[in-house]
């Protein structure tokens, strides 16, 4: 049976079937609540404050709730006694004044009824409407450190006022941006860029400590960021962090001049290392809200590219961790082993990093037979190479002694900060967005079988082991996918998108879970797009990991969460006893770690 493009496009004219799907506000509340475990208890507990409830798409439920009970509702889910790994993922603030005169603040909760079971787990959105002239809401950050940064973000970008926030400083906008101008509001154009004199606000130095500022420019690796360590002698007491040097205004540009297919390419360039994960999450969000089913072959190809990216990334990270410890041979070897993956991807997709394989509705390039053979050959090479490398690296005393028992993150702290990814799995949290939530509309993880490694110690060595185990699981997944790949089309054309619909797209990147929230507007444009990268949740937990350890351990601990921002350039030591000031450069600071010959 031959279907033409015209037939398929006609099929996707949007008809309002919202009441069938439970999406309309007039839907049957009882039927929705009985779909998943736990929804009814929440509804009973907060019945007077819930205005409406509906299902947005498969596995995502939304409650419209009063703003006064927001902290209680969020804490009700986050500290649920039975569903242990339920956590608040992030929150989004929208300016909906052109539509209904209100602002909206909506936390997302990822509910885990049973670990790694994608049919039972779901997402809950708690939508609170804030009046247009007084956008304030009670803050939950004092009891839930996971919400610290997100409330500062909506304060910076939209002008909301979280009351009783413990630390309401400027987080994201550059220091020379004037006060009172809020970029994400709908009355500001995306190109408008006012400049004033730069002002900086920092935390006060606590009693009895010296300040070690580590500035933004950095030798070699990741993005600029600014850490301020408060030290007493050699031991770190507290840390202040000022980052967001790479804030490029992506969310506003996506609403400004791009159509929904072009935003896909912008999403890929949010991060150069985990770009494809962002692309798949965005495509998943748009496909979910348009109710589109992509062909099976496209799902398999997407999963294949995701796993290839994970493999090359874990090898990259192992090299950098080895470099931080002073083991430069390990760095060179790890990057030598990783190179064939880049060559393979160059032949499959056309470029080594930003693959550009996705389009809303499927993928753009097919996997011909000779390319499949290439993939299998490379997987074999990587497996042998990594085995040899790990046998040597994990048995060197230098590496093990530097990594064991250092930078411990206890389970309770990991849960309170909503830490994600291998960092969380190394502290005992059993979460993995590939299997936890229903990703079957965009990727094929429900049809392959693999294990999720979880360790309990929470130190740097546990994080290394988690990542290496994941690498071998990824190699196994790739082999299964090539074996089982189905036939068929690779793309389904979508005509016009439905207006003012919203959905969430997510995948498990190598650092944690990536979440994209998309709300469409008129004429195939995007009304609100929110991106939350996993390092956003992991970084606030770094000060907890650094307290009590030596300054020389700091680079390794910061690198062990695999931050998409790293740090340090000129470290300034102010010794309180003698009053002398010494300026170290970035590499000299790293050298402290590399040449550390402390007490073993």
């Amino acid at each position, binding site marked *: 049976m031959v279907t033409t493009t015209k037939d398929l496009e006609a099929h996707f004219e949007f008809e309002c079937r919202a009441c069938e799907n439970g999406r309309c506000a007039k839907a049957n509340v009882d039927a929705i609540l009985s779909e998943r475990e736990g929804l009814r208890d929440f509804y009973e507990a907060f019945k007077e404050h819930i205005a409406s409830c509906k299902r947005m798409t498969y596995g995502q439920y939304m409650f419209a709730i009063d703003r006064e009970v927001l902290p209680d509702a969020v804490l009700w889910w986050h500290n649920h006694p039975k569903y242990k790994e339920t956590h608040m993922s992030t929150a989004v603030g929208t300016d909906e004044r052109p539509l209904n005169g209100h602002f909206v603040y909506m936390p997302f909760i990822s509910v885990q009824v049973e670990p790694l079971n994608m049919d039972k787990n779901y997402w809950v959105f708690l939508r609170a409407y804030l009046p247009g002239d007084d956008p304030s809401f009670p803050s939950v950050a004092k009891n839930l450190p996971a919400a610290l940064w997100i409330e500062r973000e909506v304060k910076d970008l939209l002008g909301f006022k979280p009351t009783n926030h413990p630390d309401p400083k400027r987080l994201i906008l550059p220091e020379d941006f004037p006060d009172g101008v809020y970029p994400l509001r709908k009355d500001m154009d995306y190109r408008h860029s006012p400049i004033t004199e730069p002002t900086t606000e920092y935390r006060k130095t606590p009693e009895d400590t010296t300040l070690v500022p580590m500035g933004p420019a950095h030798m070699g690796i990741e993005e600029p960021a600014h850490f301020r360590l408060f030290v007493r002698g050699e031991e770190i007491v507290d840390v202040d962090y000022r980052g967001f040097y790479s804030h490029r205004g992506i969310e506003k540009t996506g609403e400004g001049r791009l159509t929904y*297919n072009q935003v896909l*390419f912008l999403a890929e360039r949010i991060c150069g290392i985990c770009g494809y994960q962002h692309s798949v999450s965005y495509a998943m969000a748009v496909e979910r809200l348009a109710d589109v089913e992509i062909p099976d072959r496209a799902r398999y190809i997407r999963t294949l590219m995701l796993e290839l990216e994970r493999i090359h990334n874990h090898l990259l990270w192992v090299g950098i961790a080895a470099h931080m410890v002073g083991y430069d041979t390990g760095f060179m070897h790890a990057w030598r082993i990783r190179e064939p993956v880049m060559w393979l991807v160059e*032949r499959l*997709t*056309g470029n080594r990093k930003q693959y*550009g394989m996705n389009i809303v509705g499927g993928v753009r390039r097919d996997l011909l037979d*000779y390319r499949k053979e290439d993939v299998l050959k490379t997987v074999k090479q990587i497996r042998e190479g990594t085995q040899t490398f790990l046998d040597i690296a994990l048995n060197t005393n230098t590496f093990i002694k530097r990594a064991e028992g250092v930078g411990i993150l206890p389970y309770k702290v990991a849960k309170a900060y909503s830490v994600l990814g291998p960092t969380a799995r190394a502290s005992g949290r059993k979460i993995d967005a590939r299997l936890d939530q229903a990703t079957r509309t965009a990727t094929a993880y429900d049809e392959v079988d693999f294990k999720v490694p979880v360790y309990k110690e929470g130190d740097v060595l546990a994080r290394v082991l988690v990542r290496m185990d994941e690498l071998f699981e990824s190699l196994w997944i790739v082999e299964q996918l090539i074996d089982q790949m189905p036939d068929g089309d690779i793309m389904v054309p979508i005509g016009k998108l439905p207006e003012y619909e919203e959905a969430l797209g997510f995948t498990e990147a190598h650092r944690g879970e990536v979440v994209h929230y998309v709300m469409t507007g008129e004429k195939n444009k995007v009304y609100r797009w929110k991106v939350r990268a996993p390092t956003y949740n992991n970084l606030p937990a770094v000060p907890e990991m650094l307290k009590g350890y030596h300054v020389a351990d700091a680079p390794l601990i910061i690198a062990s969460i695999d931050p998409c921002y790293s740090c340090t350039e000129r470290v300034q030591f102010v010794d309180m006893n003698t009053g002398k000031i010494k300026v170290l450069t970035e590499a000299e600071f790293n050298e402290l770690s590399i040449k550390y010959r402390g007490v073993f």
Partner: protein
Amino acid sequence: MAESVSYTEKLKKWNRYEAEKFSKKAPVTTPYPFIDIEKPPEYRGIPHINPEKCIGCGACVNVCPPDALIMEWDKEHGVKRLTYNAARCIRCARCIEVCPTGAMEPTTRFEVATDNKEDLVEVVEHKLAYCEECGEYLDFTERQIEYVRNILPKDVFDMYSLEDRITLTQEEKMRRTVVKLRETEGNVYPAFMLVKKKVEDDKGGEE
């Protein structure tokens, strides 16, 4: 099929310069830049606009995410220029995907570094069509009109008598329609279509 090698065989045979080094214990470093190498055939290099085939429709300009392709209009002289700048190109290949004539060609050129940004600019200039009646320039190029003539079947052309209307501005078309309606006065067929002559006066026409 007198050619011997199939499409995928040709692609399969391409091999990297360093590929054989994995088996021997030879130095792995590539000798580039002291020799000339090529990238794999699937590599996405700089696109090239073929001025023979380009019709100046602007489909590529609509899709380009970073605005590396921009259309400049010059209505006084009646030209429109399609400018491509490799300094902003992110090599997403969307322009290659949507070009209706195949003028945007994919290449594997990767040696693009330069010290002067003028070298990265490629411009194709098109002449706009002008209206026969009033002399104003239309928004289409003459090549676009020729291309459409090649696509639509001749019967449709004759039936709607498009041949004469195709080079008129919007105002001229509306003027002619009004004139024709006044002449035919409430006839059941659209005023501009050719109809089998039932009455002996001239109803066909230049609409």
